């Protein structure tokens, strides 16, 4: 318990420093932490895990903007009984094995196809592509006054069969899918 707590302390300290002082590099560090935190405020249907200790898979589609940061963040972390696993993918890969799917800005063009592929599956889609939530994604990340903010499309989340904690919802701006 003590090493875990120390790790948490260290992590938290790290985030603040990054967030306040190193904006360019810190942005993805913060976003990586956000991705990690999302796993803690989201409930997946139990059927989505083969076993009780099956990992939560965080998929990164397209060019990985995190570098090794994401691996560092999730390294050794367990949410519930589920260890966290990073899986890097390409847009045409089968994305359905993921629980969280970060769609890199590089895949902006492939976005509709990706969203169609994961539609109806309990996959929390996250991206910093602008208007991502309005386009049918679930969590959109955007930078306001050098701070990372969230937009959440709650309807999309419900449609995907995910339950997002009200605590998280309270921090985010709730948006709706734009009708084309």
């Amino acid at each position: 318990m003590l090493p875990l707590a120390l790790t948490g302390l260290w992590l938290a300290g790290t985030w603040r420093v990054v967030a306040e002082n190193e904006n360019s590099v810190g942005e993805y560090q913060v976003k990586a932490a956000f991705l990690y935190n999302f796993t803690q405020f989201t409930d997946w249907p139990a059927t989505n895990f083969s076993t009780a200790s099956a990992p939560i898979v965080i998929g990164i589609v397209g060019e990985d903007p995190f570098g090794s940061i994401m691996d560092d963040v999730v390294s050794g972390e367990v949410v519930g009984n589920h260890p966290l696993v990073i899986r890097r993918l390409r847009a045409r890969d089968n994305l359905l094995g993921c629980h969280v799917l970060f769609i890199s800005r590089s895949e902006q063009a492939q976005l509709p196809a990706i969203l169609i592929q994961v539609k109806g599956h309990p996959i929390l889609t996250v991206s910093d592509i602008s208007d991502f939530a309005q386009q049918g994604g679930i969590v959109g990340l955007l930078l306001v006054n050098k701070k990372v903010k969230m937009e959440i499309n709650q309807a999309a989340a419900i449609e995907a069969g995910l339950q997002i904690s009200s605590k998280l919802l309270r921090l985010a701006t709730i948006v709706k899918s734009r009708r084309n």
Partner: protein
Amino acid sequence: MNSFRNLPIQQKMLDMTLIICGAVLLVATAALFTFQVENFRSNFQRNTVTLAAIIANNSTAAMAFEDAKAGNEAIGSLIANPDVVGACLVAPDGSVFAQFGKPEQGGALAEFPAAGESIFAGGQILCTQTIELNRKKIGSLYLRVDCRQTFEELIGFYAMITLGVVVVSLCVAIFLSNRLRWIITEPVLQLAETARMVGEKNDYSARVPVSGRTDELGRLTESFNQMLDRIQSQDAALNLSQQKMETLVNSIDGIVWEWNPRNSMFTFVSPQSRRILGYPPERWIGAPDFWDKIVHPDDRERVAKACAEATAGQEPYSYEYRMIAADQRLVWIHESGVVQVDHGQPVSFRGIFIDITERKESTDKLDKLNRQLIETSRLAGMAEVATGVLHNVGNVLNSVSVSATLVGEHLQRSKIGNLRRATTILWQKNGQLAEFLTTDPKGKLLPEYLKTVADQLADEQAQLVAEMGSVRQHIEHIKEIVAMQQNYAKVSGAFEDLPAASLVEDALQMNAAAFERHNVRVIREIDQNAPAVRVDRHKVLQILINLIRNAKYAMDAQSPQEKQLLIRVEVPTIDRVRVIVRDNGVGILPDNLVKIFNHGFTTKKNGHGFGLHSGANAAKEMGGSLAVQSSGVGQGASFILELPVAAARKETASTEKVL
């Protein structure tokens, strides 16, 4: 407390009810209050911890995403609770992430307890709550809540409620007490009222109204009435008995009185005092030293002394003295009384004065009469004795006379004439004597004749000498008789040790002539070994002579051949000698056996009834006794005189007994 004791019982009961109610309410309220305060504290603490937990939980996301605004919003909701003084969210590195209310400055955070706990400090609750996400600590919530205001409000509220409850309870208690107290107090008040009536008016006919209750008060009422019943009947009995006493006291021929020695005053004198002494009771009672005023001055000192002795001895006393009546009469009083003593001090004398003046006078007369009787009796006795003595002397003189006649006759018939004739012949033959004697036939016979005459004269001489010896003996006898009489004529009173047998012999001897005259045969059965008795010779002789005379008298009617007197001396016990005088005369009626020794009792024509009476008294005086036995008329009688054995003899006897 004393003033409470003197309150009316109704007030007391009300006060007690209120005190009890108050005490019960106080205890109950105190317990409730303590419970409520404790409850309040624990509730408040629990609420605070819960509040902290909720805020902490609501702050998780804000902390996780480092959203200070959201954090401030989360703890800003505490504004809904006016008791919250301040709260802050602190990041694991110690920096304050969000804050509400009064900022925690300086080392204020150090006051807070360890994570997950809460403490009371100065009316505030300090609570620390860890903010966890996925079992990792991502921050801490510090919450400071002031409970004083709520507590004070609560206290005020409780105080109001308590006051209300107390007021209402007391009102209910007073109301109920007023409605119910008559159940207890009414019979008590009735009892008190009746008791007051009995006490003040001595009216024992008063009764407490009976309520028909069976509780203690009902029984008390019943017992009280029963007590009154008894007192009433006892009072009536007392009155009756007092009346009886008064009647009795007034009917006593004497003055009943009570005297208080402390103030020398009579406290009670019966009304007879007016009749006997002429002083009404009022004059006695309340007059100090009244007794001293009316007692005869010559007797005062003597009676006062006797009175002092009676007081010291604490025994009933009696004495006689004279009092001076109101009309200056002298009244002989016999006073008898008892002394009541308390702690060694005489507290009262009670007794009776009896007028004995008449008795005194008649006693004097009787004494005089007795003295006369004794004198008469003594004279009679002496006459009897004198008769006996004279008779005895006469008898002896008769013998002397006979002897004298005999001597005379002897002398007349004396042979001395023969001698004269022989000597005449011898005188005539003077000168021729030899011849005559040898030749004359007559002369030859003369020597033979002279011898015969000489022998005859010698015989005569012997006879006369014998006769004269007899006369001397008779004269000795007369001397003895006279000496004996002189012996008994001596003044009596001296006790001597005398053999009983000789006393009996003397008595018989004195009556010997009478026995001869009346042809009484005397049989003696005398124990010659009987010890000496210590007696007054004169008195014993008097008794015995009296008994013998009585016996002789009782046998007067018998034919001369049958008169028989038995005298027996025997020793029934070691210290007693018994003399029995038994005759076979007329006997004694059984009725008379008991009064035969009474003064004045007699069956003789000329008797004075004093002989046996004084004989029995004399026997008693000497330490002996005189008794009588008779089987009845014609059966004869036995008088039994018992006399004490002389002291020396008795001592020996008792020594022997011991050995």
